[in-house]
């Protein structure tokens, strides 16, 4: 078993209205960042867990996303190995 750190990124599905992103975009436009096409807001979860391998950790995280962390109707998720996770192996 080794300690593995993962970064899970959860974002609203493409095409889904993201009112928070829209509000931020209009704030940025007020600051004259006028070339912005779109802002979308999601969340990042940093998860540290013990697993047999990196693949095992990713499999566990995928299951967590499917069962709780992401809503399959409205959100997509992306799981990445967090930097310096390898060092702890």
């Amino acid at each position: 078993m080794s300690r593995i750190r993962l970064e899970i990124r959860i974002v609203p599905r493409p095409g889904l209205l993201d009112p928070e992103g829209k509000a931020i975009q209009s704030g940025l436009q007020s600051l004259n960042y006028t070339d912005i096409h779109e802002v979308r807001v999601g969340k990042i979860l940093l998860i540290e867990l013990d697993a047999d391998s990196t693949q095992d950790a990713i499999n566990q995280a995928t299951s967590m996303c499917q069962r709780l962390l992401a809503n399959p109707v409205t959100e997509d998720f992306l799981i990445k190995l967090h930097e310096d996770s390898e060092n702890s192996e």
Partner: protein
Amino acid sequence: MKVAIITFPGSNCDYDLYKCVQLVGGNPEFLWHRDSSLGKVDAVMLPGGFSYGDYLRAGAIAAMSPIMAAVKEFADHGGPVLGICNGFQVLCEANLLPGALLPNTSLLFASKEVTLSVENNSTIFTDLYESDRSLRMPIAHAEGNYYADEETLERLEEDGRVMFRYLGPQGKPTNESNPNGSANHIAGIINTKGNVMGMMPHPERAVETILGSVDGLDLFKSLLNHISASKRV
């Protein structure tokens, strides 16, 4: 009618529901989210509030609590389940109802009285309402923007499973009178079997004249009648 009212950490309409069930002659009972059994009850109600502080997504963590396994089993066997506001969010997150409730398009917490149409008055929750009746009751939510993919929306509409819609002053749904951006102005839906209903407006806060409206009363009476009738058979 013995009704289980589930209290999650952060529920705040559980006592309103308790009082309301008593008002229509039912026998309410509080159950805690950590309970694993419903016992012998005739109906289950999930109250409004902010379970788990709405962390992650409104209703998401409550949907995983121990009592929800028992609620799912109860629903699978045809038991009536009503989710109001946060309770509706929990039912969607628990996959007992399709779709999801997103943040209001205004990004504001919407707290006001709305007018609703009764879209389907042939269910156990609505059969005392006349089909052309419009209802006044309050809403109080930040995530009430009903969303489902096109296919699911079409199915809901075709099957008559949209229960309530937000209406404008002319008695028709309009974008201006839609308080949260809900698809097709949807305020409440029911499952295919007709025993699980979720709605964002609060019928339990419209049951006495002093509250400004009694339009929610017939919803609870409909359910009570249905349960009493099924017990007589």
